[in-house]
């Protein structure tokens, strides 16, 4: 009876809808193959629903009706090739996003990392740089900036160019200030930025401790050996298998007892890495690579 009611209300033929969806899935698969063959990026491990929406948006921007029509553009338009991946991988960020995580880093994790003579911190998927800027500010405040190198990487060369300048894409606002304070900050956030032409730029002595590089966590090797790896709101774009490949890369890049920080709504609960990463603070999403004798 329920099914009959649902049928009665349907306005398009079920077969027609199924066929539309099937065709669109073919187009998505073909476009993914074309991207891999033409420009070398493998998007097959991306979460299907969100990559589909991004393809759909690109089709609208390119003024074509079907996702499949992006294929000839990708193959034959030089301009389209050069920015295809950048247009598909734009991520947003913010200063001191997920403050309780930064608070835990300030109070618990960084004091431990102070015992190392020098530190390497890898921010994987740095987007427009806010995460790396926040980390530099935090390190400055706990007195560890001097012997620390922050390596900020992203797949998207456009956002890297932006991040490198140290200039914020959006001006400082009261939400930024509130998150900074919730992260344990006691100064004014504007203390770390200079303002010119209505734009704010991170102080040069902080920016000097951050290097920005192109890196694809799905296809490139371990970027550096690090005491701390932070990768937030990147793995949400991957399917479960691909998340595990990324976690494997992060695990391999961590020194023994090094820390991994993931996004607020990301989870290791159903992951095999639950066994080799010890939960330090679940709400803060901070985990530690177990030393070999404890595995």
């Amino acid at each position, binding site marked *: 009876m329920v099914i009959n009611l649902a049928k009665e209300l349907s306005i398009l033929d079920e077969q027609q809808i199924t066929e539309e969806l099937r065709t669109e899935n073919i187009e998505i698969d073909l476009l993914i193959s074309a991207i891999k063959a033409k420009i070398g990026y493998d998007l097959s491990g991306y979460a299907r629903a969100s990559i589909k929406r991004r393809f759909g948006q690109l089709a609208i921007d390119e003024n074509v009706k079907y996702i499949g029509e992006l294929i000839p553009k990708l193959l034959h338009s030089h301009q389209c090739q050069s920015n295809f991946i950048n247009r598909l991988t734009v991520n*947003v960020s913010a200063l001191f996003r997920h403050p309780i995580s930064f608070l835990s880093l300030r109070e618990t994790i960084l004091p431990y990392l102070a015992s190392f003579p020098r530190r390497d911190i890898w921010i994987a998927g740095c987007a427009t740089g806010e995460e790396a800027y926040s980390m530099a500010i935090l390190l400055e405040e706990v007195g560890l900036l001097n012997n620390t190198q922050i390596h900020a990487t992203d797949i998207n060369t456009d956002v890297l160019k932006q991040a490198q300048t140290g200039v914020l894409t959006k001006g400082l606002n009261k939400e930024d200030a509130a998150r900074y304070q919730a992260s344990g900050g006691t100064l004014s956030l504007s203390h770390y930025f200079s303002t010119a032409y209505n734009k704010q730029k991170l102080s040069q002595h902080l920016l000097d401790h951050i290097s920005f590089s192109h890196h694809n966590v799905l296809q490139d090797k371990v970027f550096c050996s690090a005491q701390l790896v932070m990768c937030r709101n990147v793995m949400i774009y991957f399917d479960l298998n691909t998340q595990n490949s990324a976690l494997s890369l992060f695990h391999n890049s961590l020194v023994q007892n090094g820390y991994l920080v993931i996004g607020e709504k990301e989870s290791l609960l159903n992951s095999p890495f639950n066994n080799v990463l010890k939960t330090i603070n679940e709400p803060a999403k901070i985990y530690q690579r177990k030393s070999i004798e404890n595995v």
Partner: protein
Amino acid sequence: MSDFRMFIGGSAGSIAPISSILSSLPADFNMIVTVVIHASADSKTSMTETLANNCKLTVIEISDKEKPIPNTVYVAPSGYHLYVENNEVFSLSVDKKVHFSRPAIDVTFTSAAEVFGKYCIAILFSGANEDGAEGLLNVKRHGGLTIVQSPASSQVSIMPQSAIDNGAASKVLLPIEISDLLLNYNDLA
């Protein structure tokens, strides 16, 4: 477990009717319920806690790639778009806002429509913008059941009215009628 999946969307003025409908559902409702409500990111009380009050079903905020189980209400986290993947796990994204909103109801309803087709029940409540209307139309196009809170009973009528205007509404009902319909669905399923 019921084959049907319920998706609920709302914005300004929607928390009270959604809360009341969820609290009317029995603990063995057996259908997975997903809720997307616009909330200001700096709101002090958590949406999940508000909805869990008086609700006999377990109410939890969604984590990325979570696999839903029955008798549970899943709430989209503030600041993330929510999708249903084809293998039926949830996924999240921080892509740009849609209708100035993240989560956007259009995003979730559209992906739910494509995955669940005629087994999708989508309900749109009070709200002050047009988010949800397009998503609801997609649910209808894919054979799902679409219900809109009657504009007259909505604290802010823009959202339900937009859905009615674009032809997305299969039924326009009062909150109490929506409760009754859902309870009967459970009896039939």
